[in-house]
């Protein structure tokens, strides 16, 4: 893959306007070839719209987008020949079996029936679906549907694979299987662009991340880079006795010189404080011990991606999750 240009995807000032709404509003994306690139953002941030433009399904209102060296508008068919797509809604025919769906996907890429079938069986095995391969998709569980859907976009190994929220609604095991397939694909020289709302997915899977909000780029970098961009870490303390939370909070705040964050996870015995250096954390824990406040557990960590996102945009990545889920047809 060394002959490929360094960037698999490059957009400049990409805009998509629907009536009054600027779904994508001047997005500059750069995705390096041979990497897993995560696009992270809340619902309505423009992730799906951006993917649809990059996969030639939507025509940009303005701006340019180049995919594998081809312009998505002028050279749409060249782009289509080299990409794979798993959209947010299932691209499956429920009245066909899993294997038949894979054969259909293979034939759409130009495979003859025989090779499409052989490839389908190979993928069924890879995604642990061999046993249900000859059952109608309408009898599948949510996880099985999602896996066959992802498998269908890999029937012909794409140079660039787009995955729009590939693990939404998957159980942990199916999720790790999909993750593994994505890593395998990239190891062999492919590039993957995936959108996600799951911070841990972005954190563990993506080599590089683009955070977007309201159709615009907010930040770009590797997960460690993004976290390091917010200098302070977080000290989390779990108390034995929740009744002494206020007292402990005051002590910690005094020792560290920062305010205690109101804990959002409603656990009355947990406290978290932003912290600049580890020495102060040790001192603060000492203060708690001297005051006789029992500490059950503590952790000192870098901020999560959500903290980063919150700091950059003023809201969490999880805003509006329910709204979009309601749109997905049952």
């Amino acid at each position: 893959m060394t002959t490929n240009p360094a960037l698999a995807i490059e957009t400049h000032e990409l805009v998509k306007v629907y009536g009054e709404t600027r779904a994508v509003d001047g997005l500059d994306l750069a995705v390096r070839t041979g990497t897993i690139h995560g696009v992270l953002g809340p619902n309505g941030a423009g992730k799906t719209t951006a993917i649809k433009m990059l996969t030639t399904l939507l025509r940009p209102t303005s701006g340019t987008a180049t995919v594998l060296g081809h312009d998505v508008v002028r050279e749409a068919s060249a782009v289509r020949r080299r990409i794979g797509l798993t959209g947010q809604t299932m691209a499956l025919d429920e009245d066909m079996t899993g294997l038949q769906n894979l054969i259909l996907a293979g034939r759409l890429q130009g495979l003859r029936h025989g090779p499409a079938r052989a490839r389908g069986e190979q993928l069924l095995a890879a995604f642990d679906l061999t046993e249900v391969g000859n059952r109608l998709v309408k009898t599948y569980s949510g996880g099985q549907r999602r896996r066959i859907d992802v498998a269908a976009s890999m029937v012909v190994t794409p140079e660039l694979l787009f995955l729009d929220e590939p693990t939404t609604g998957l159980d942990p095991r199916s999720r790790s299987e999909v993750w593994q397939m994505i890593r395998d694909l990239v190891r062999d020289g492919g590039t993957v662009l995936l959108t996600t709302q799951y911070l841990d997915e972005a954190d563990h899977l993506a080599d590089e991340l683009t955070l977007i909000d309201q159709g615009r780029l907010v930040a770009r970098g590797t997960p460690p880079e993004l976290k390091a961009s917010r200098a302070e870490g977080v000290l989390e303390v779990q108390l034995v006795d929740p009744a002494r939370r206020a007292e402990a909070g005051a002590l910690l705040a005094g020792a560290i010189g920062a305010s205690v964050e109101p804990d959002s996870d409603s656990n009355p015995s947990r406290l978290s404080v932003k912290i600049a250096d580890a020495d102060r954390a040790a001192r603060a824990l000492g203060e708690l011990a001297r005051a006789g406040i029992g500490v059950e557990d503590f952790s000192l960590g870098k901020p999560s991606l959500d903290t980063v996102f919150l700091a950059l945009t003023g809201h969490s990545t999880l805003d509006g999750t329910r709204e979009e889920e309601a749109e997905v047809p049952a």
Partner: protein
Amino acid sequence: MTSSSTEARPAAAEIFSRSVAGAQRPPAPGPLFACRTFAWRTLIKLKYVQDHLGTAVVFPVILTLVFTYLLGGAIAGSPREYLQFFLPGVIVLSLVASSMMSALTLNRDIATGMFDRVRSTPIWQPAVLVGTMGGDVLRYALTSVVPLALGLLLGFRPDGGFSGVLLALLYLQLFTFSVSWLWMFFAVLIPQPTAAAGIVNLLQFILLFGSNILAPQQTMPGWLEAVVKLNPVTHAATTTRGLMHGDLASGDLGAGLLACAVLVVLFAPPTVLLYSRKQR
């Protein structure tokens, strides 16, 4: 979903390596291959979807029996007499009902991600419409042969003989192809599957019962006769009857062919246009 099948999982290299035959990108499929792919899909679904099989086989049988024995005597004097008039009509009726199925499939594809996946592949895009309709030819053949065989068993005696019946069946393939553009048009126009199905069903009901399938239009009040004469289904039924009984007036044949032409000219271009512009 046992752990043993996980262990049997092929290695990554085996799945994605470009040396594996299946993983390599083949040359882009030609239009004919793309059409055959969608025709294949249509036939596969015929096997699994009870709806399809029901419309193709069960529906015409029930219709023939109910109308012939329940109402035939009242309408034409005797069931056997009515059968001579009604049977060509029941074939038209079954075919029109059956012709909706592919449009409803297309409509569901658009509502789900299938449409996006198909459009992000390098195939000749009209294959979705053309190939699907091609696959329907076999379904239509089945749909027309079932009531015909039943009719012959019950005493339907076409005066046009074998060649007349064959010509009628060929004409019906043309007519069904033409009328399916009408359903395709609504399938592409209306995004919600339930709404599309509702409108298509309503329209089908009007087309079928506002025609001369069940009774000759000469027996109707003048205003209704005028409406019925505008209905393409009426002309299809008249042409089918005429061909089967060997007494088709050339004017009626012309009207039957004109009905097909009008349906295609009115609905095929906007359907193709709407489909290719979808979501742009």
